[in-house]
């Protein structure tokens, strides 16, 4: 087989082979830029993705083996919070708490009103009635204070406290302290090359954190547009070439028989 690939051929073939991943990256870029507004964290798709290698049984087992938090409760029960869910150790076996699903567990604490679990999709409480999600959001930690109240930290919500696991209040004294803090800590933060590279990549360097979605959307949409129009042009050229070839065969057949 003779290989005589010119720059245009290389361009065409690499584009055609990679056009589907290209479209996938472009589309997901736009989703990532607006993940918070779209509430992507709240939409569970576990049953639909188990066929993907990254979410297969082995990948899930590996995730489950990554322990993020552990706790031995007063009744002797051992709890393990992993990247792939919460487990209770019973008779040497790890039993998954189905209510929490495969959400990543960040922290565990025992309180007078039950077990409090900080996870990636919210704060869960296991009281006398069983499990319930007390707070939605990206929870980082949970700790029991000396007064019996539990404090949890959530992304964008800050520190919230509760004495019953139902009613959660912002920690006002802490909030007042934080708001009184001078912004010097951030202003004097040195910018490393890693920061600059990342901020140029995400557009934060040009638009700021709040508007970086403009940069991401722009590039994501252009990526989708170029990928799709390129694929369309290639498809048109291939079907035209096929039609012309069929026409030639028909003409040659007619010439032979006619």
């Amino acid at each position, binding site marked *: 087989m003779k290989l005589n690939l010119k720059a245009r051929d290389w361009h065409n073939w690499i584009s055609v082979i990679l056009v*589907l991943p290209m479209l996938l990256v472009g589309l997901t870029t736009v989703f990532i830029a607006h993940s918070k507004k779209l509430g992507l964290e709240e939409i569970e798709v576990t049953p639909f993705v188990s066929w993907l290698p990254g979410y297969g049984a082995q990948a899930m087992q590996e995730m489950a083996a990554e322990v993020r938090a552990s706790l031995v409760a007063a009744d002797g029960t051992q709890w393990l919070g992993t990247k792939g869910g919460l487990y209770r150790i019973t008779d040497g076996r790890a039993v998954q708490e189905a209510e929490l699903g495969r959400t990543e567990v960040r922290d565990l604490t025992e309180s007078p009103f039950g077990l409090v679990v900080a996870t990636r999709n919210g704060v869960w409480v296991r009281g006398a009635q069983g499990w319930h999600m007390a707070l939605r959001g990206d929870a980082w930690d949970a700790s029991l204070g000396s007064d019996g109240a539990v404090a949890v930290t959530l992304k964008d919500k800050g520190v919230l406290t509760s004495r019953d696991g139902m009613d959660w209040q912002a920690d006002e004294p802490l909030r007042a302290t934080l708001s009184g803090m001078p912004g010097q800590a951030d202003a004097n933060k040195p910018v490393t090359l890693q920061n600059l590279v990342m901020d140029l990549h995400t557009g934060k360097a040009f638009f700021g954190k709040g508007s970086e979605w403009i940069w991401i959307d722009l590039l994501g949409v252009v990526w989708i547009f170029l990928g799709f129009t390129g694929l369309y042009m290639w498809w048109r050229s291939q079907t035209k070439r096929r039609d012309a070839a069929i026409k*030639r065969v028909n003409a*040659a057949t007619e010439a032979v028989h006619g």
Partner: protein
Amino acid sequence: MGNFIALLLSGFALLLLVIALVMFVHGLRARLEARRCSEVAAPRKRH
């Protein structure tokens, strides 16, 4: 509301990917067919 828009956008994205996949497979088949036709036509021309 956010969830509804997310599902709507996901549906649109999925549709776009399916169309792209169909075009990709169809284009490859057209290319193969064109090559086959050329191979069939070439010996006849020599006659």
